[in-house]
């Protein structure tokens, strides 16, 4: 009755019988999270750090095998950093800057990403998903040791959900049999095939691409194989529309073969068949197989990510093609977005309406991700004869002429969306200020002495002043806004990223490090109004 759906890489939260299971009445919790994957655990970290009691229910006892989401982008790492687990990810992860693009048998060009200086985190790292998850669970354990009210229950499978007006009743199955649990709010982070979504009868719609990827993780016996990303269009070394090779930690390389929809999974997964593809691509290289899998993808999302007291986050809410690494990375932004809003509402500091903005903002983000990954998919697998002709013309010209290279689309790396024009935004009243830090944008990191700007902000509303005066703290109907006083003198990165042509600046930042409003000078009434807008208190 309790078979694992997958093999575990790390058994980190073995089943233990909980006192809730013996209670005659279902025990009510402020927040129950369904799913102990990266997004569920991130949401738990966010809430736990705010001292909001949270219970994570997972139908397994740890982290699943397989490298899976291996590319973690800057914003995702910055969020993990705010949760206190970004640094081990960065230490373990692989950074690459050199990419090569191939078409059929030949290399057409190479590029260097030339990362911008003055950021704690790089544009992205490659890291096997089990490491990413393990660092978060380790952080969760550390927070528990500090007394933060986070629980994770292994082999607790949610079998039924009854959504009431102001709470949810869950039927949970365990190795000791079923029990009931109640939640004021429930966050479903139970993955692309989300059982909770099905239980609620919610639709998951969108443009469906049907394609399969054969993933092979291999360990090179000759470790001087380069740390580069290779992307092939129409590779001559085997069937399929594309092949992607990149490096992971532990001398493991990941190869993704796009092999089409109508494949015999069992046949394709036979080691000799995987080796046939690998050998054709890599030539005379010695390697051992670490892991392989076939996965399929779709580009879809739910219409709304909030249904009363139930929220959907991560793949449960939206799914994209893998090009651009917009799956786990955008899921982390969901957690980042929902955490502080739930916290304020549960503490009685903001009205329920604030929670609607989670859906508004993250649907907006999901659409941007779906648009980008759809375009990449269309470029990589052209659907019509004419789009194929154009695509090959781009690749042909890109080999000789720089102008065609920006048109080559093998995935646009996940970047966080800017919540332009959405309802929590305040005034953008800083003439001459840079576009990249406009209202709605996520903050851009900058060095501050020996520290980093993003390490100094987050979790609360912050008033960041640059060469401008303001009170050290302001209480706005129970929400405390703290000032971070900075100077642009001797800090060209800060000046370039936050002042532009302005001489002084006052930025109001949300707990998730998005810009609420910006002005030249501090003004109490304006800041109050902006905080009230950003918390839906108006």
């Amino acid at each position, binding site marked *: 009755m309790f078979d694992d759906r997958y093999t575990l890489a790390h058994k980190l939260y073995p089943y233990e019988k909980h006192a809730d299971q013996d209670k005659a009445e279902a025990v009510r919790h402020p927040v129950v999270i369904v799913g102990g994957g990266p997004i569920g655990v991130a949401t738990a970290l966010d809430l736990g750090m705010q001292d909001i009691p949270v219970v994570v229910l997972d139908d397994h006892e740890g982290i699943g095998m397989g490298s899976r989401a291996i590319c973690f982008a800057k914003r995702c790492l910055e969020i993990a950093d705010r949760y206190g687990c970004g640094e081990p990810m960065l230490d373990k992860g692989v950074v690459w800057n050199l990419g090569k693009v191939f078409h059929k048998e030949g290399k057409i060009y190479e590029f260097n990403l030339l990362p911008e200086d003055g950021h704690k985190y790089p544009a992205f790292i490659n890291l096997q998903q089990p490491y990413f998850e393990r660092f978060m669970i380790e952080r969760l354990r550390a927070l528990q040791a500090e007394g933060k009210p986070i629980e994770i229950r292994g082999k607790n499978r949610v079998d039924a959900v009854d959504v009431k007006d102001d709470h949810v009743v869950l039927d949970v199955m365990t190795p000791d049999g079923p029990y009931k649990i109640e939640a004021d709010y429930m966050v479903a982070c139970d993955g692309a095939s989300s059982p909770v979504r099905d239980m609620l009868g919610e639709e998951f719609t969108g443009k469906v691409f049907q394609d399969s990827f054969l993933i092979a993780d291999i360990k090179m016996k000759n470790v001087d194989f380069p740390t580069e990303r290779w992307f092939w269009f129409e590779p001559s070394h085997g069937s399929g529309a594309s092949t992607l090779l990149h490096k992971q930690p532990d001398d493991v390389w990941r190869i993704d073969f796009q092999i089409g929809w109508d494949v015999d999974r069992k046949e394709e997964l036979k080691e000799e068949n995987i080796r046939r593809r690998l050998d054709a691509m890599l030539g005379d290289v010695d390697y051992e197989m670490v892991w392989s899998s076939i996965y399929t993808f779709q580009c879809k999302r739910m219409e709304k990510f909030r249904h009363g007291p139930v929220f959907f986050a991560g793949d449960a809410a939206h799914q994209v093609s893998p090009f651009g690494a917009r799956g786990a990375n955008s899921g982390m932004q969901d957690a980042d977005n929902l955490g502080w809003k739930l916290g304020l509402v549960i503490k009685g500091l903001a009205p329920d309406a604030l929670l609607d903005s989670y859906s508004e903002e993250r649907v907006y983000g999901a659409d941007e991700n779906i648009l*980008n990954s759809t*375009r990449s998919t*269309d*470029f990589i697998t052209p659907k*019509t*004869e*004419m*789009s194929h002709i*154009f695509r090959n013309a*781009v690749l*042909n010209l890109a080999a*000789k*002429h*720089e*102008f065609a*290279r*920006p*048109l080559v*689309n093998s995935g*646009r790396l996940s970047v966080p969306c800017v919540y332009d024009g959405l309802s929590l935004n305040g005034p953008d009243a800083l003439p001459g200020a840079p576009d990249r830090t406009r209202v709605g944008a996520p903050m851009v990191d900058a060095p501050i002495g020996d520290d980093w700007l993003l390490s100094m902000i987050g979790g609360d509303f912050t008033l960041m002043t640059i060469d401008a005066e303001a009170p050290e703290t302001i209480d706005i109907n129970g929400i405390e806004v703290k000032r971070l006083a900075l100077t642009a003198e001797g800090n060209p990165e800060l000046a370039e990223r936050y002042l532009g042509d302005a001489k002084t600046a006052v930025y109001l930042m949300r707990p998730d490090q998005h810009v609420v409003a910006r002005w030249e000078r501090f003004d109490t009434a304006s800041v109050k109004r902006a905080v009230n807008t950003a918390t839906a208190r108006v």
Partner: protein
Amino acid sequence: MSEVNTKPNIEGPDDFYETLLAAHEGKTKEESDAINARLVLILANQIGDREVLSKAIAMAAET
């Protein structure tokens, strides 16, 4: 000496590419070819400079 600009010059290349392909959606190959031919002539007129046009034609003819 007028030269063909071979540096990236289109803002929002992905948006442009999508617009370009959208013009071909639902068209037969023959219709699409005709769209492309008209587009080349429109863009050529926009450029105007005969020397640039000759060089661009030579570039495109290379394989």
